[in-house]
């Protein structure tokens, strides 16, 4: 097991390097120039000398190979460089936003899981009955409604009916739990609902498949209680694909809530990704994409470890 864990962790390094090379090339293929966007996009007149001086200061005139090498050396020293737009270290820019994005991802995952597993189980156990139909309607609606749109509806409802708007600035959970939850509960509900729809459908179909397995039939034949069959035998095995979906969704939430964060004015990683791309802030884009790639790798790794815990047949020898 230890060897497996170490091998998996070591394999992340070449994956991340490949991602880094691809990101470095892709962001430079996109047309646009951070200096023009910064100095000219306001409509003011700026001389070519000023533009050239700024390019030089940012190191954009140096050969791409030199820029890449410098960035890679920095990564191995845990230094992602400096944001070309703000001049702040990339790690600092990310550190400001990461607590909010992580907390929102955790809250949305908890809400989604708390909804999806009971609903999916009920739908599978009562397949074709009215409970199944109700759950299907709820989950299909969740898939059809984008979370940002649901978020807008929440805001309009709160504003229209209660003249209330959730706080617009982030307060850390430990500093003021009430203010923190007041801000994050609404986006967590909006995102969690869509997330639960995907997971509910996965739980239902996985459980239906497991319930048809021979060992479950044997358990029924042995006269085991329904509760034990479902909980101990069926659900535990059915959760394997569900865990995969939860893991992928969680990793997506770290940097993927682009529009929802805009709607609720959340200072998260998704909003930062959009800003960095629209400003052509190469170093920040590179740092953010590496973070997202790392999140996916780590979550997949954790999912694999959970597999072994859930299913004793899986070994990592």
């Amino acid at each position, binding site marked *: 097991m230890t060897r497996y864990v170490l091998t998996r962790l070591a394999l992340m390094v070449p994956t991340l390097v490949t991602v880094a090379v691809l990101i470095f090339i892709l962001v430079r293929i996109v047309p646009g120039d951070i200096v023009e966007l*910064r100095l000219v996009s306001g*409509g*003011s007149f700026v001389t070519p000398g*000023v533009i050239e001086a700024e390019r030089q200061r940012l190191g954009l005139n140096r050969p791409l190979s030199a820029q890449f090498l410098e960035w890679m050396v920095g990564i191995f020293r845990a230094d992602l460089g400096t944001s070309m737009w703000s001049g702040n270290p990339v790690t600092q820019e990310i550190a400001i936003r990461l607590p909010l994005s992580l907390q929102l991802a955790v809250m949305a995952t908890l809400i989604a899981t708390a909804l999806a597993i009971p609903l999916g189980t009920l739908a599978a156990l009562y397949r074709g009955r009215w409970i199944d139909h109700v759950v299907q309607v709820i989950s299909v609606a969740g898939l059809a409604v984008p979370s940002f749109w649901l978020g807008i509806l929440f805001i309009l409802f709160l504003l229209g009916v209660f003249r209330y708007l959730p706080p617009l600035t982030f307060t850390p959970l430990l500093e003021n739990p009430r203010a923190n939850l007041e801000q994050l509960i609404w986006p967590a509900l909006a995102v969690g609902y869509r997330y639960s729809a995907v997971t509910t459908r996965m739980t239902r179909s996985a459980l239906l498949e497991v319930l048809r397995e021979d060992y479950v039939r044997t358990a029924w034949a042995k006269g085991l209680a329904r509760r034990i069959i479902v909980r101990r035998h069926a659900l535990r095995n059915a959760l394997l694909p569900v865990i995969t979906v939860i893991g992928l969704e969680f990793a997506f939430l770290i940097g993927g809530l682009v529009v929802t964060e805009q709607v609720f*004015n959340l200072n998260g990683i998704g909003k930062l990704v959009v800003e960095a791309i629209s400003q052509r802030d190469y170093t920040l884009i590179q740092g953010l994409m590496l973070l997202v790639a790392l999140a996916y790798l780590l979550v997949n790794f954790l999912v694999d470890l959970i597999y072994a815990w859930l299913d004793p047949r899986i070994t990592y020898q």
Partner: protein
Amino acid sequence: MAGAVGRVRAVRAVPGWLAIAVLVAAVLAPAAPAQQPRRGGTLVYISTAQPPSFDGHRETTFAMLHPVKPHYSYLVKFDTQNYPKVVGDLAESWTASRDGLTWTFKIRSGVKFHDGSTLTSRDIKATYDKIIFPKGDVVSARQAMYQSVRAVEAPDPQTVVFRLKYATPGFLEKLASPFNFVYKAEILERDPHWYERNIMGTGPFRFVEYVRGSHWVGRRFEDYYERGKPYLDGYRVLFIASRSAMLAAIKSGQALTEFRGVSPAELADILRSAGDKVAVGTSPWQCNNTVAINTKKKPFDDPRVRRALTLAIDRWGGSQALSEIAFVKPVGAMMLPGGAWAMSDAELARLAGYGRDIAQARQQARALLREAGVPEGFSFTLKNRDISMPYEAVGVYLVDQWRQIGLNVRHEQVEAGRYFADQRAGNYDLVVDFACDFIDDPDVQLLKFLSADVSPVNYGGYIDRQLDALYVRQSRTPDKAQRAALVHQFERRVLDEQAYAFYVLWWQRIIPYWKTLRGYKTTTNHYVEPDLAEYWLAE
């Protein structure tokens, strides 16, 4: 009465029944009695973008000014209550020599920086030296604006002298740039980049906190030189990029305003929700949409074709129709409509595309196209930014106008990075361009339209030495009437005779703000605002 007129003007931007309702309320409402400013409270307002750095001398965006400027003072500044009048800030008084080559400023005594040190003329000299003669890798975005300056001197602690190479009208206004924060000489000597990441000024508010992507906080500077000011205890800027989130914040009262501007539809939305708690300031805006033509491409290298394109645009009808849905309205040439340098209506009407008889203009346009050999149904692309307000509305309107003279136009909207890259590379036929600045001065407004080898932002690519010569002449003509005549000659050449580029419409600022915010007056540009030393909260 003036208040009622202001309110009447404001509601013109609001469509339908809402406009009528607000209009009736405005007429019936008694004029508010003048009130004594009240001390206290924190003003919360929105900025739709974040400052790239905190250094006013290197940045060009309102996103830096709106949160940062309350921390600084200026040598001279624009009086936002009587814009564009220039008043002294750190300068108590000033004189110009008879030949206009020497400007002497007397500095207030006892002005304190936020760290408790005393400001002297040395700080002002260091500030303007950094702006006008940046050294090493220091970037100054407005260096070109002060080409006439030979030297800045500080002969004694309370005197600053600007010596010019040639007399230039509008020099005082240029000194009053809202970007010209006065910095501390000692800090600049130690590290000229210090101000990019730090704040240390003599302005009415001290710096408290900045959380990138979230908010900026300032607190009253108790030792501010103007006794009794500022009235506010502090201010908080919320950075909100999403328009829907911004509107929600204003509607809920979590923020009292945003000092750049909203569209008529957004205004209507706010008024529907917040009703009479919100006042509206409107003003022509020192920003506009122009069309740059790629004069290196056929058939746009032919002045007849370019003239036909501008003749086809019904600016007066467009002003009426588009102002209902977008923040564009005033019809004008190259200088701010209604401003000190604007052409008279009679002069304006003689320019191609500014007449009131659009049918006749379009007939003339068709004839010019035939003469130039451009066939009916000729196709080209109008490139535009992917920003809805007001670019999209203006672009769609232009496509329709040209369709009416038998042209087939494809409207291509691209995001900002590609938009600027394509303009620079000449990868376009026609492009919806724009200009914004803090000052209605010909030196600033006309610079863009000089020959391409002189002006790097002349994306049209034309070379016209007559224009370049006219520019220099107007810039060195102290007599205002003579200078205006030269400016109008320049405008006629660009917009009419050669039709190198043309103006579509100027923008119109619409600023909704909660009535609890007092002392605020909407000006013609969003760079000189906010002036937080003057504002106070009614409750």
